[in-house]
């Protein structure tokens, strides 16, 4: 009984560490987004999707909402616009990874590409094209497409960083549980 309690406590501690690291990563991404006046990748998108691929649907939904709102703040968009999009994508990614996909870089890059495409399309249509300003397609050419490509490329870094964090906590947890009770069901 005591052993079980101990197991639960160690699991909770590892989960806390993992979420502190994820929160730190999200905060770093936000700071990166808000610094400087140059064009940069929307790193909160790959960060959110990569984290969602390692968590359950509820957590993925929360991560999507937080990252989306931060992205709205950083990009000066209507609060909630990117949040809605990222909530949907994060839950979708979480479910896909739970039932269909394996943790492979290509899978994640494919999902990030879809999300970036949808986000870029929404951004272009509702923030620029709708106003019919002359030469509006230049925004697509000079800002949205290059930033989208940079975002997809930055996904490689986030894939490995998030995987490392998640696996470290997970493997650590399994090792600990195995040591304590080699016959217990770890799942």
């Amino acid at each position, binding site marked *: 009984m005591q052993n079980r309690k101990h197991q639960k406590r160690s699991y909770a501690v590892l989960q806390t560490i993992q979420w502190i690291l994820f929160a730190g990563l999200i905060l770093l991404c936000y700071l990166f987004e808000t*610094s400087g*006046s140059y*064009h*940069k990748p*929307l790193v909160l998108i790959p960060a959110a999707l990569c984290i969602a691929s390692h968590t359950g649907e509820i957590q993925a939904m929360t991560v999507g909402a937080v990252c989306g709102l931060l992205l709205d703040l950083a*990009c*000066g968009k209507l609060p909630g616009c990117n949040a809605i999009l990222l909530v949907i994508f994060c839950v979708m990614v979480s479910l896909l990874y739970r039932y269909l996909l394996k943790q492979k870089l290509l899978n994640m890059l494919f999902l990030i590409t879809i999300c970036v495409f949808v986000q870029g399309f929404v951004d272009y249509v509702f923030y*620029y094209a709708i106003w019919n300003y002359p030469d509006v397609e230049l*925004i697509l050419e000079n800002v949205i497409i290059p*930033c989208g490509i940079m975002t997809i490329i930055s996904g490689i870094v986030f894939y490995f960083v998030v995987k490392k964090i998640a696996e470290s906590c997970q493997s650590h947890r399994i090792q600990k549980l195995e040591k304590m009770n080699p016959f217990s069901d770890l799942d």
Partner: protein
Amino acid sequence: MLCLLALLTGVMVYAVFIGGYTISAVGLFKTITAPLQNLSNAISERVEYGLDLYRNAENYYQENRELRQEINKIHTQLADYEETKAELERLEAFIGIKEKHSDYSMTAPFDVIGYVANDIYLSFMIDGGSEDGISLYDTVVSDLGLVGVITELSEHVSTVTTILSPELSVAACTSSSREKGVLTGSVALASEGLCKLEYLEKDTDLKKEKIILTTGENGLFPGGYVIGYVKDVAMDDKGLTAYASIEPASDLKNLSMVVVITDFNGKAEHIDAES
């Protein structure tokens, strides 16, 4: 021995009598031994130095540490001084605005917190809000020229839309000929950090480097404030009017401090998003 003593006494007496001059034999000896003396002196100095180091190493170490700390302190003070000096210069420039335009009610300078991510119009946030007396659509300026207007307001943070945005239209004129036009942003020019002065006469005499000022006609912006300089003049697509590319006087990409003009002579009573 007596002979030797007598000789030495004789030499001594002779030396006394020649009064201050060296005996030639002694002089010769000194000359010959001078380099050796130098060498021995150098060695002795070196040894003394070594011994001194050995004896006072701890004292020197302490002294060195203290001096280093002193130098660091002086460097820090120097950096602070430079920073304060630069800030003072910036603030002096803002005071200059008030001296030039006595009708302006201005806030204290606000720091630029950060730029809106990936915005080609270079919108940015400042660390002042409604608590600091700022209202929506107040004019934002730097010490060099017009920057934009407040388009989003919270208690302590505001978002500024710059003159590069097509959402803004400013009634403007040239400083010399008073030729009027409407300054607005354009997608094509914004990426180069320029804006557009539209609706100029076809045969405009506008030339490069001419200064463009606000007219203050619509009550949104104060009149007579510098916007920027003419970079280029061209005809519009339909060939009915001319337009000029304007380079803003403020470096919109690297702003660090701005002030907000909360009131001025001729300010419109109610400004809404449409106007």
